[in-house]
């Protein structure tokens, strides 16, 4: 037994645990509630409504004059109120369902969605020498050499949750939703995977930390404005990278079942789609899984194309002001590390706002249009883009 424990690096284990808890449960899950709030407020702005603007901490229940509004912004407590509502609702299981799979399905949606965040670098590195940790801690849970592929692999397991929810409910609308969703996700997974092959070709690298460090020094992939990014090669390759970004984003919308691709749960045709028969916290788990997938999808898009945690013009700012704004391996101050985490979150939030903006401004596709678009346009475009990048890279090879 002692031999087993002798091999385990305790400092590594503790930092890994802190990172898992910190990133997954302290950042992504609260972001889900922030997303719900943003979705409601932003949709209200788009539709010229007010939206939830009064919910605060209900101090009036305890005899106070006014509810406490967090930060003075009304309605921030709405998401928490929604959560409490979900927990307090009756957890009803219809008699006709296949109970084991009916219970398994919500878990199979949330767990993969949360697992996928393991390879996302949410910051550069944290210099914890104050607390006695000698090596600076990398702000990524698992620094894998296969990065995005891991995320896609785990995300593709998320289909099981939806398929099983549709099947085990033993009812027509959920079944149709499940069938639609699995067909859609498999179709768009192909263009999603193909769309980032040009990115790997340009970087010569699949490790997300290295990809982000490179973008920090040499300009973001679709915004190469400093460092080596100002070379002709990067700007010629900017064209296929932009195609990649567009295809990736569209496929990401389809993968996360968001409008205009939310055929799996479109209310007007299928009541609620695959989660029609679910209630209470089980329904909330589907919701959480969907939003977590959206957040991590945004995180992936930001990391690959928009420089991840890097501050725009970091090296330029460093040479102009004398303060350090870009990441240097091994000598990044703690404060800068924290700023990098903040920058990453800010970028992800902006991308989520884009998700929400699209949802409330575009109508839904018809299912045959969706499949036709996926197979006859997206797939070919992604494939041609790989070819275009390869041809361009004959003249502008990677360093």
């Amino acid at each position, binding site marked *: 037994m002692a031999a087993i424990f002798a091999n385990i690096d305790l400092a590594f284990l503790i930092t890994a645990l802190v990172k898992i808890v910190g990133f997954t449960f302290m950042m992504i899950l609260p972001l889900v509630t922030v997303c719900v709030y943003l979705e409601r407020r932003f949709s209200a702005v788009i539709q010229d409504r007010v939206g939830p603007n009064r919910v605060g901490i209900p101090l009036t229940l305890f005899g106070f004059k006014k509810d406490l509004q967090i930060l003075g912004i009304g309605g921030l407590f709405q998401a928490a109120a929604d959560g409490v509502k979900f927990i307090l609702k009756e957890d009803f299981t219809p008699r006709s369902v296949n109970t084991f799979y009916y219970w398994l399905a919500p878990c199979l949606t949330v767990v993969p969605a949360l697992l996928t965040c393991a390879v996302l670098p949410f910051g550069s590195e944290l210099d914890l020498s104050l607390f006695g940790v000698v090596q600076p801690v990398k702000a990524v849970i698992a620094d894998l050499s296969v990065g995005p592929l891991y995320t896609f692999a785990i995300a593709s397991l998320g289909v099981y949750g939806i398929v099983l929810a549709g099947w085990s409910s033993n009812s027509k609308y959920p079944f149709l939703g499940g069938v639609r969703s699995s067909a859609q996700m*498999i179709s768009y997974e192909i263009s999603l995977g193909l769309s980032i092959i040009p990115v790997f070709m340009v970087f010569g690298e699949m490790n997300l930390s290295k990809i982000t460090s490179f973008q920090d020094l040499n300009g973001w992939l679709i915004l190469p404005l400093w460092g080596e990014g100002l070379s002709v090669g990067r700007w010629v390759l900017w064209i296929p990278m932009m195609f990649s970004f567009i295809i990736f984003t569209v496929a990401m919308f389809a993968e996360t079942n968001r409008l205009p691709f939310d055929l799996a749960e479109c209310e007007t045709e299928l009541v609620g789609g695959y989660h029609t028969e679910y209630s209470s916290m089980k329904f909330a788990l589907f919701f959480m899984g969907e939003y977590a997938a959206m957040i991590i999808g945004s995180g992936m898009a930001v990391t690959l194309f928009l420089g991840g945690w890097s501050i725009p013009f970091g090296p330029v700012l460093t040479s102009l002001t004398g303060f350090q704004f870009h990441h240097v391996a091994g000598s990044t101050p703690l404060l800068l590390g924290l700023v990098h985490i903040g920058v990453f979150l800010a970028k992800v939030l902006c991308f989520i706002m884009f998700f929400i903006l699209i949802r409330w401004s575009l109508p839904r596709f018809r299912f045959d249009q969706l499949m036709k678009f996926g197979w006859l346009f997206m797939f070919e475009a992604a494939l041609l883009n790989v070819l275009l990048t390869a041809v361009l890279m004959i003249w502008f090879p990677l360093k």
Partner: protein
Amino acid sequence: MPPLLFYLFVLITLGFGLNVVIARNPVTSALSLAVSFVGLASLFLSLDAYFIGVLQVLVYAGAVMVLFLFIIMLMDIKSEEAGGRANMAAIIAGVVVAGILSVQVATISGKLPFSDKSTETAALKLAEAGAQWEAKGKENLPTISRDLKAGELPDAKLMGETLFSKYAFHLQVVGLLLLVSTVGVVALSKRDNKEASSQS
């Protein structure tokens, strides 16, 4: 990876593999197979073969098995669940095939040049390999030697390099085979459609 985890994943792989065969419900069988694939993928990860491990999950557990499940769900599985008598001939054939396969694996793995070495006695010499790689000259890829020198195993890059240089022809043949089968499937399903429409 601690041996404890190895045994855990072996147990998952084999246990759920067995469940594929003995489960009455086809959906359970299909899902067990998917879990078994995930267990197998973790065994690949323990061998530092991250790329193959991830592909195992991405392709088999994530795409192929979902399609299986898709088909099973569309069929009526009530008759299957009721169960029937075991098919003796099929069981015997299965056992014989499994036996032949294990004998084959045993003979081949016994003859490999590194069959007497273990991870303790033959550690990976990445820096050395990096220097060798750089000495290769023209065909060397800068990212591979950089990774090797930094003490990382660039498994995906090495695999790609081998596939597209040493086995380039084989890869083309496999690609052609897949293309032919795709065209065949489309042709078959097209003809069915026409017959169905002419009958109705």
